[in-house]
């Protein structure tokens, strides 16, 4: 098939396509196996399993198509490998972002929203390279805004923690 008429080529290396295709096919296969445990309709017609079954089957098909095309494209991979690589530093920064969310999930109930988010936001800004004073002001403004707008105006019960 052809690529889109308009947008430029995304320049994804063929190895990514190989892995992506295999993952899609594996996911599809797992779904197909799992839905066999779903019950049928009383008259023996397919019920809850029908749609996920079709989706799973198609995932296997398209995943394998992607794998085949990736393997075929292997020879002319040099021109495609133009996607800029991710540096180790970039990876750490992304992990820090995910770390904020996970840490919030673990700590919010204990420490409350304001303390948890305040500390985590400041740390993340600092890790990403903001100056401490700027980070402190931005953190205070953000936490204050969320407490006022979500907590007071929209009545979202933000976690209170030990302070409440």
């Amino acid at each position, binding site marked *: *098939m*052809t*690529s*889109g*008429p*308009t*947008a430029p*080529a995304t320049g*994804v290396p063929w190895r*990514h*396509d190989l892995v*992506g295709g295999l993952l*899609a096919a594996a*996911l*599809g296969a797992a*779904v197909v196996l*799992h*839905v066999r445990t*779903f*019950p049928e*309709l009383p008259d023996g*017609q397919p*019920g*809850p399993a029908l*749609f*996920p079954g079709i*989706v*799973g089957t*198609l*995932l296997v098909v*398209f995943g394998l*198509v*992607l794998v085949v*095309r990736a393997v075929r494209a292997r020879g002319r991979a040099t021109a495609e490998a133009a996607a*800029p690589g*991710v540096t180790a530093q*970039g990876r750490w*920064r*992304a992990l*820090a*972002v*995910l770390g*904020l*969310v996970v840490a919030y*999930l673990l700590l*919010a109930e204990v420490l409350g*929203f304001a303390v948890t*988010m305040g500390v985590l*936001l400041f740390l*993340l*800004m600092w890790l*990403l390279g903001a100056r401490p004073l700027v*980070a402190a002001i*931005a953190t205070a403004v*953000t936490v204050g805004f*969320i407490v006022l*707008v*979500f907590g007071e105006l*929209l009545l*979202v019960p933000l976690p209170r923690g030990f302070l409440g």
Partner: protein
Amino acid sequence: MLADPTLVVVVLASAVYGLFIGAIPGLSATLATALLVPFVFFLDPLPAIAAVITMSAMAIFAGDLPSALVRMPGTPASAAYTEDAYLQTRAGHGARALGVALLGSVIGGVVGAVVLMVAAPLLAEFALQFTSYEYFWVAVLGLTASVIISAGSQVKGAISLLIGLLLATVGIDIALGYARFTFGSTDLLQGISFIPAMIGLFGLSEVLRNVMRPGGPVRVARLRTQGMFGETLRTLRRYWRRLVSGNVIGSTVGALPGAGGDIAAWVSYAATKNTSRERHLFGKGEGHVEPIVSAGSANNAALASAYVPTLVFGIPGDTITAILLGVLLVQGVQPGPELFANDAPLLYGVYLIFIIANLLLVPLGYLAIKGSSWLLRVPGSVLMPVIVAFCVVGSFSINNGYLEIVIMLALGVLGYLLERGGFPLAPVVLGLVLGPIVEKNFMQSVIKTNWDLTQFLTRPVSAALVLLTALVLAYPLLRGLVRRRRTVDASG
């Protein structure tokens, strides 16, 4: 109704917000929508729709600012003509380029809104005859189109769609009430909560992408705005045909399910380049203003006409309307032909908001151009963490639950990985929104007729929709054949 102070405040606040997010390179209008949703979730349907309409119109225009000033598109909808806008600025024509982008956006938005006002009621009358068979096929058509027109590889578009459809099957099933893929979690019985999913897919994933590749300090090109409007009007008069063609292309592409402002801009840019006598100037040297006239208007026209399928069939025209549709469904508003028969005030409100939002774009857009160099200096090291905080709180606020934050986190990682692998995200959203509609209408139809599948093909409207779906599926094959013929002709 429109003098309601809440509405005025909502429109103004979302306008400023849209200009801000749109002007930051790497943050799309879809991200802006996803982060806006936790706020509009608490509003009535009309102010909620108004907020999204105003915000997105502003954001799509504001995306042109960093294009012209730092050579980075603010939103993907500006990417097609970023090179031209930047080269124009460097050659001293930046004010004209941005003026054209601004007035072109306003005109595009109004034209798209007029298309919506004319086309939507007509289509709605037609859609009133629809039964579960037709809704099944309309949804299938929408899903098919979203894959065929997705950017990049269609195989990947299909996989994206299937992932969306699969996520949509989580929870209680429609036929038996059986819990699918919940893995024992009672919270998942309701399915994957849509709004946190969107916040993850478009909010968190964009933050991850941005922090992975931080740009150096941006160098902002200088801009002189004296005599801007006079020069802009002269340019628009000179290239008025481009304005017309850009708007026709934009309104048409925008109304297709899954294709939004970015694809409209690319198609319009390509069409302009193919037919222009001055195409040798495009993207080189001093750049050219002609593609900015057409593509800069096309993306805003597409934004408005995306509401046609959204309001008439409940099939979103782009990712922004997909998110809005999800919100409306949660609020208990079911878009569809009945909406046109029963809720005229809401519809007229929506039409009016489109006009107001686009007129408001003139003064606010002008101020944004004036203040653009300041807007572009907001450091990412501060902004990205703030966005993460809003992703977390926004997801939580939907149901006051931590599962929503986990869903947001999981889909954020998924969205990042998909984008990195070249899988488009729009089909995922379409699958998530339309999956339940496809399944529900199919199951209702077959249970009603005791598995008489011929009903899906023999009813006249159904048959027409099947044919249309087949044509959409055949389109890439046909185009491939035509292209092969052409290359053969050219070489032989």
